[in-house]
């Protein structure tokens, strides 16, 4: 049977109604046999389109070939050449629009499960510890400060430490990982995995300091005064957006950032075993249609809600969330209130949320984003009863660091202006990448930006600005 006709290996998963009430990871991972069978489907294209679809250009046919041959240690070594966070990327990348979206097999049948294979190789290595970490170039004596410890920063730190530079990573929270630890839930990305990938970087010599809020505890200029030769800003876009409709400050209306930070970083789902509480709604409404909305809604389900509604103003086709997450959410019984927009929050005399007045929408002509513009249907208002509302409509640039760095050029929305190919900002010695430059995007795009900035920083440290 030719590879194209062999079916794609299905990922074993926890059954929907079981997993909807626990925080264990949903997909269980391939067995070695499944991984070899799936890897054998790869056509080993001469000009692999999958690699072009990968923002960090992992040698995809290269690592898959090793898996097909059963050389799992060689497979992870191959991935590490381009990607320092494979266990993360294998889980959270939108493969369907990147590597797998370009796979030749996908044109006539099902694409190779590249994400699942990447995850397999990374998990296999974490369990067996056989592969040596990539070796470091000779020390250059140059020091780079990397601000924030999310995916773009971790990529910069990894690339530069291998090139022989000294790297100091600064994190404002008490744990490293950025959005990987505060934003993405345990059932989608176990925090131990992030911890293990950060520990790898530390083993390679990256020094990590948590509880340092750059912009408050120390400024960018002070980092230069303290002897850093270059600074990379990978601080994300952590400013929650609200809809600015009446009743937004009622008790029971939370930003997705707050809800997910309580649940993920503070592990509030274990309260009272841990000390941080989290509101447990019986009827929960989540506003938005992206990955953050899916994560919030599925978390609410796991915290014991009777009903969780996703309120999104466009149709299912326009939902920006990863397809796998929408599918998982549907399987877990989430209620999709599509073409529906909140108008105001309703509360009781104790200032607690009791419901949301919503209005039905219909799709009109495409707007600037290319998506059809939602238009209100007059007279279609109705009340969605709920005792908890989570606002997941996006985030903006957090001004904390940029305000303390007055000579750093920003655009009109407060994002840092940086060259798209190099990450260079308008301030000498400072690079930026990830969400603080582009606005909220994906883990892998942030890593792609980190890769380009690391190359540019290395060039600067070697040859000058």
């Amino acid at each position, binding site marked *: 049977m030719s590879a194209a006709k062999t079916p794609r290996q299905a990922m074993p998963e926890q059954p929907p109604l079981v997993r909807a009430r626990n925080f264990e990871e949903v997909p269980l991972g391939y067995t070695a046999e499944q991984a070899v069978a799936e890897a054998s489907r790869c056509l080993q294209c001469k000009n692999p389109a999958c690699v072009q679809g990968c923002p960090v250009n992992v040698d995809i046919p290269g690592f898959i070939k090793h898996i097909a041959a059963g050389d799992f240690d060689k497979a992870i070594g191959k991935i590490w050449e381009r990607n320092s966070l494979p266990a993360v990327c294998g889980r959270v990348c939108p493969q369907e629009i990147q590597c797998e979206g370009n796979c030749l097999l996908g044109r006539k049948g099902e694409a190779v499960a590249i994400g699942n294979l990447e995850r397999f190789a990374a998990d296999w290595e974490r369990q067996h510890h056989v592969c040596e970490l990539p070796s470091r170039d000779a020390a250059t004596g140059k020091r780079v400060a990397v601000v924030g410890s999310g995916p773009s920063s971790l990529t910069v730190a990894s690339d530069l430490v291998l090139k022989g530079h000294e790297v100091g990573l600064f994190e404002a929270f008490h744990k490293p990982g950025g959005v990987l630890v505060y934003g993405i839930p345990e059932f989608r990305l176990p925090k131990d995995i992030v911890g293990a990938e950060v520990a790898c970087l530390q083993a390679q010599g990256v020094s990590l300091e948590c509880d340092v809020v750059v912009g408050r505890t120390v400024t960018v200029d002070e980092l230069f005064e303290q002897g850093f030769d270059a600074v990379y800003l990978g601080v994300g876009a952590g400013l929650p957006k609200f809809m600015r409709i009446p009743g937004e400050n009622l008790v029971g209306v939370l930003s997705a950032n707050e809800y997910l930070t309580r649940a993920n970083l503070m592990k509030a789902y274990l309260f009272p075993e841990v000390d941080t509480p989290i509101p447990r709604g019986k009827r929960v409404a989540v506003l938005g249609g992206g990955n953050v909305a899916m994560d919030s809604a599925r978390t609410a389900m796991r915290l014991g809600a009777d009903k969780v509604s996703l309120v999104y103003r466009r149709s299912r086709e326009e939902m920006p969330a990863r397809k796998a997450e929408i599918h998982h959410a549907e399987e877990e019984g989430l209620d999709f209130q599509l073409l529906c927009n909140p108008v105001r929050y309703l509360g009781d005399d104790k200032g607690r949320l009791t419901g949301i007045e919503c209005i039905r929408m219909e799709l009109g002509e495409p707007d600037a984003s290319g998506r059809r513009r939602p238009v209100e249907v007059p007279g279609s208002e109705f009340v969605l009863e709920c005792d908890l509302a989570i606002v997941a409509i996006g985030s903006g640039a*957090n001004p904390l660091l940029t305000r303390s760095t007055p000579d750093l050029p920003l655009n009109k929305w407060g994002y840092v202006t940086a060259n798209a190919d190099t990450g260079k900002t308008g301030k000498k010695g400072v690079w930026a990448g990830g969400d603080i430059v582009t606005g909220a995007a994906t883990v892998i795009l942030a890593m792609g930006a980190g890769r380009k900035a690391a190359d540019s920083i290395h060039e600067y440290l070697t040859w000058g600005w």
Partner: protein
Amino acid sequence: MFTIVNREEMAGGTVILNEIEAPRIAAKARPGQFLILKANENGERIPLTMAETDPEKGTVTVIYMVVGKSTELFRRLGVGDAYQDVIGPLGQPTHIEPGKNVVCVGGGTGVAVLHPIARGMKQAGCDVTSIIGSRNRDLLILEDKMRLASTDLHICTDDGSYGRKGFVTEVLKEKLEAGGVDQVVAIGPVPMMKFVSLMTREYGVPTMVSLNPIMIDGTGMCGGCRVTVGGETKFGCVDGPEFDGHQVDFDELILRLRAYTEQERCSHERCKWEEGGAA
């Protein structure tokens, strides 16, 4: 890092002072700013406004009342023990205008936050009248320090066990009646700040309050610390903690502060029960 180098008990052990090693923060902190502290791995992130900083020693000082599980865990830390995490300095520093005639009003542990501000204002050449109060004599803190930081100090207790019997607002009213007050600073329980602000508004005297809403990160990321000020939503952590008392929606703040009351009570009970069981 974050080792406790000095610990004092006040107000009969219900109020604790911790002087903590945190050189980076001590070098940067200004009056009015706050810290976030976390006792241990599973601990909550608790915001507390600094009572003191010593850049030379590299220490910061917080004074807090033991009210729930987290502050109970803080209380159990002795000299030589360390907080797992101390983050700061956060928030905006106090804006001090030299040469003003200021009345500083403090209630309960709010006096700890008020003290560096009063001292800063006096050092800037302000005429500082302070009015501090508590439920009873035992709960009054920092009387001596406030006396040094003030031109004139008034003390009130609810039960009359010390100083004048009654609320701080009564003394304040007399001062406002007498006139010549340029600014009022009020720091203490939310109802006290509310009533002070209502009173000073009648007299048209600008009033600054320091708020302590529920928050997690303290860097503008979670939005949990939303307060309505002048009809607009502000974040206590990055826009505050100090705001114009005449503009703050105190009733909303009081409701929001109660969001987790029930869970906090359970957690605290459980914590006391566990300590009892271990002893």
